[in-house]
């Protein structure tokens, strides 16, 4: 599985090369080695890297840092239960956008994955589920043909096998480089979810930071149950666009998870350390055996 391959975008765990560099620099300079300390963008505290666990939380303010699909699988699914779908699907260039291939190559290098979403099936607390996890490190999780196709296939697979589907969303919106074809992905995923819904199956979305644009205006908001991580930015329009339209300052906390909860668009805000338990409980309460046990 190429998914757990090279990850050059996130240095919390530190790879060999940066450790070597750290050591080299530590010998020659009296400064703090690179990569041992990180700054939390939320509380601005300087954090000792080793204090950050697999949950990727700020030890000071509990801000939820962005995660990769591999890291998400690690804290969500039962060990070794994940089977990936369509791992090799890659983008083409429907609009002949100049240098799109180069843009894609850079995104692949930065994220360590081939496209902006990882899909597959696995188990959470013993319960089978289909899962899709978007990656904000890949072109800001933008939705083009591949994201649309992989998510749609995952939903269709879930419908066919009568399984629930859980989608972790994070996206800046439609992939502009693929033009109108990226817009069509919104309709494509939504109609597949319509059939999953008609089959009486469970769809859970977990909104993570940030979930905006075309993804928020399609599958992110269609869950039977919509969970969100604390303080995640969730909204349709970008804040700069809104400011440019209405020429007003935006209220404190605008478009954050707590704002969406208050306005009735999110069922629950769940701390990342409790997410696996909550998802497990939701799956249990939606499966026939679960009902018997309860």
């Amino acid at each position, binding site marked *: 599985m190429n998914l757990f391959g090279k990850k050059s975008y996130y240095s919390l765990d530190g790879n060999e090369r940066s450790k070597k560099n750290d050591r080299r620099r530590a010998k020659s300079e009296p400064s703090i080695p690179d990569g041992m300390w990180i700054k939390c963008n939320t509380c601005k505290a300087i954090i000792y890297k080793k204090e950050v666990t697999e949950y990727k939380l700020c030890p000071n303010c509990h801000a939820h840092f962005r995660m990769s699909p591999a890291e998400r699988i690690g804290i969500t699914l039962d060990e070794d239960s994940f089977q990936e779908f*369509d791992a*090799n*699907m*890659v*983008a*083409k*260039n*429907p*609009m*002949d956008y100049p240098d799109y291939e180069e843009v894609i190559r850079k995104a692949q290098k930065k994220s360590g994955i081939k496209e902006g979403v990882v899909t597959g099936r696995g188990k959470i607390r013993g319960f089978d589920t289909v899962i899709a996890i978007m990656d904000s490190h890949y072109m800001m999780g933008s939705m083009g*043909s*591949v994201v*649309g*196709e992989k998510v*749609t296939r995952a939903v269709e697979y879930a419908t066919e096998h009568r399984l629930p589907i859980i989608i972790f969303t994070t996206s800046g919106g*439609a992939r*502009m*480089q*693929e*033009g*109108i*074809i990226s*817009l*069509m*992905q*919104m*309709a*494509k995923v*939504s*109609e*597949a*979810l*319509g*059939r999953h*819904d*008609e089959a009486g199956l469970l769809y859970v979305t977990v909104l993570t930071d940030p979930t905006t*644009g*075309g993804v*928020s*205006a*399609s*599958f*992110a*908001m*269609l869950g039977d149950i919509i969970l969100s991580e604390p303080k995640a930015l*969730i*909204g*349709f*329009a970008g804040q700069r*666009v*809104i400011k440019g*339209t*209405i020429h*007003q300052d935006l209220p404190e906390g*605008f*478009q954050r998870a707590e*704002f969406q909860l208050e*306005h*009735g*668009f999110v069922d629950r805000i769940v701390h990342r350390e409790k997410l696996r338990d909550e998802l497990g409980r939701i799956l249990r309460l939606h499966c026939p055996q679960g009902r018997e046990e309860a």
Partner: protein
Amino acid sequence: MSDAMKSVGIARMIERPNTKQFIRELFKDFMEFHGDRLFADDGAIVGGIASFEGTPVTVVGIQKGHTLEENLKCNFGAPNPEGYRKALRLMKQAEKFHRPVITLINTAGAFCGIGAEERGQGEAIAKNLLEMSRLKTPIISIFIGEGGSGGALALAVGDTVWMLEHGMYSVLSPEGFASILWRDSSRVAEAADLMKMTSGHLLENHVVDRVFKEPEEGLEHNLSYTTDQLREALRETIPELMEMEQKELLQKRYERFRKFGEYAE
């Protein structure tokens, strides 16, 4: 000027005939219905029931004005969530009475404002996409002017999607495209060309199924030139879709949108 920029200019002209004018030309006995039953009535969405040559239909469209005063009433054709919810309410009503739905699309996009976000613009659009994809009655979507992104798509999940010659449909405006991707808003024309947002391009990649000619002298001077063609097409298509088995209708609609995407495996 490039063809794309020419169409962008024409599609946005303030004189361009709007949804209410198309309704007047194409249908009889139009009765406008108001409100989403949840929050408010959005002037940017006009909808109701009418007769098309004796067949009862539901018509829903996005309304732009010709004057500032009109535009203040319809928010320059930028719907709020309550507008999309009104549209959905009327489409569900059409489903109940098995009337065909005709949607008329002309918007720069869904409104970007604080209230729109507070009331769930994303959720409102998402719900329309899902519900339209399985609405148990025919839907014909017609792009009469601008088709701006998700705010346009929210009325365009149809069994067949039509467009006027100088209509346009894109994932974002050419201005937005140029400023976001190149940080240079002066490259609008280049963006418009690249984005393949004109009726010809959209027909080529099957985003639209039919294109209707506009008169040389401009649609605003001769609306019936184009509405005559539309009437002819509706006369043909409405019975065709109404006679189709419901299962087949829904399967074909599913496939119509399922096919989009270019990827390699």
